[in-house]
């Protein structure tokens, strides 16, 4: 009896509660960091977070609606004309591209190389919500219920902006390429030199360029497709300044991203094409794979050539 009472005292003491809660937090952090076991907990909690996000978003949406309602017709006409001009411009470029892509296809056939499949993308909107984390992140209005996955590449019209970092059920956090903990494999478009671009707050930084390499300001950086996270050939940043590292072992370069990362309103999520999905499928999906192989050997050989082509590229 005495023992029981002392037990009760222990569980009721603030110190015990404190240690217990801190222990739970520690376990949550470790499971979240290492193997994403905490994802179900995050999904459940994100249901409670959605109303809060909506409350912050509503006044902004109302303001925008009011702005449109109040804005003068003349301004709208002006904007309309501007958009029409841009559309014409874009259509002209598309026409040029059609002949270019036909030419490209013929050349690729000559070289027996794989075809670059067009990207599958979907649009998501950026929520204007402050992030007090010491990370450069934005929130978008789609999450795991829309089929997003961690590490998915995110673009906007100007270029690559980042990748999915943390997933909620109906929203996701995107880490930007300029974040100091982010790195992305890139290629210099002019010379084909491959290196890695590290985030540095407001720009990206190439820290490991061989001193003999040919790189100059104005060079365009595109994703190299290494690591398999970002598709190949998406434009990313323009080299602004080239210098030599303090130890004189490498050249370094500072590059400014094309996308205006502090003024994002909508972003595009990149979906891996079907081939990649089949290749990456886990052993449990072996039966599905087998069926696919039985269904058509032609398609699998196509897959193989495709993946070989990717390796070559």
């Amino acid at each position, binding site marked *: 009896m005495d023992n029981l009472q002392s037990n009760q005292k222990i569980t009721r003491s*603030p110190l015990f509660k*404190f240690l217990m809660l801190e222990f739970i*937090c520690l376990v949550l*952090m470790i499971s*979240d960091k290492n193997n994403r076991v905490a994802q179900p907990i995050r999904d459940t909690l994100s249901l409670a977070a959605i109303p*809060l996000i909506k409350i912050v978003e509503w006044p902004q949406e109302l303001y925008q609606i009011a702005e449109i309602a109040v804005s003068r017709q003349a301004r709208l006409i002006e904007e309309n004309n501007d958009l029409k001009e841009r559309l014409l411009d874009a259509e002209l470029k598309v026409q040029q591209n059609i002949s270019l892509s036909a030419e490209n296809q013929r050349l690729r056939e000559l070289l027996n190389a794989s075809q670059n499949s067009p990207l599958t993308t979907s649009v998501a909107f950026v929520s204007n919500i402050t992030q007090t984390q*010491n990370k450069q992140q934005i929130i978008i209005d789609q999450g795991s219920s829309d089929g997003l996955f961690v590490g998915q590449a995110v673009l906007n019209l100007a270029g690559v902006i980042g990748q999915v*970092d943390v997933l909620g059920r109906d929203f996701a956090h995107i880490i930007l390429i300029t974040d100091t903990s982010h790195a992305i494999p890139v290629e210099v478009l002019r010379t084909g030199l491959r290196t890695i671009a590290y985030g540095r707050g407001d720009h990206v930084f190439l820290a490991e360029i061989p001193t003999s390499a040919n790189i100059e300001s104005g060079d365009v950086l595109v994703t190299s497709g290494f690591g398999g996270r970002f598709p190949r050939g998406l434009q990313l940043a323009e080299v602004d300044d080239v210098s030599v590292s303090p130890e004189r072992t490498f050249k370094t370069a500072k590059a400014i991203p094309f996308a205006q990362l502090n003024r994002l309103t909508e972003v595009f999520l990149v979906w891996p094409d079907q081939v990649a999905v089949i290749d990456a499928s886990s052993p449990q999906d072996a039966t599905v794979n087998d069926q696919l192989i039985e269904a058509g050997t032609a398609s699998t050989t196509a897959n193989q050539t495709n993946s070989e082509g990717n390796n070559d590229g």
Partner: protein
Amino acid sequence: MMAKRSSNNTTFMHLSMLGGVLLTLLPWSPTLALLQPHWAAMMIAYWSLNAANSRVMYVAFAYGLLLDVLMGALLGKHGMSLVALSFLVTKSAKKLRMTSFWQLLMMVLVWLFNDIVIRAAIDWVSYRYQPELIDLLPLLTAALIWPWLKYLMDRTQTSMRLS
């Protein structure tokens, strides 16, 4: 009568906590965002001091997890710092009610500093974040806001008790 009053108080506590979380989420201009105090931590400090009850720790834990999900942080990061804050305040709450205004303000700043340190440490462990002096700016605004916040919350509670 007592039960009603305490339930009223609990509602007010949750409302103020939600208000704190919302204030954190509101989009400010980048300069103001740097000065943004940790509202939720200030609310937890106030309620731990006011209630002097270790139950506030559970509240701190729950809202910490909510903040983690909203901020895309490691699950448990805000929870850990807020629970620690709540524990420290609860431990000395009864003594602190007697202290002078300035002493209390100093103590609040120390608690909030501790909160910042815990979060910076977790960031450092999880992705090698290098802390900067700028991270301490929110303490300055917290020092300016705390007296008004305490006064406002005390007044609201008093008027609720009277009505």
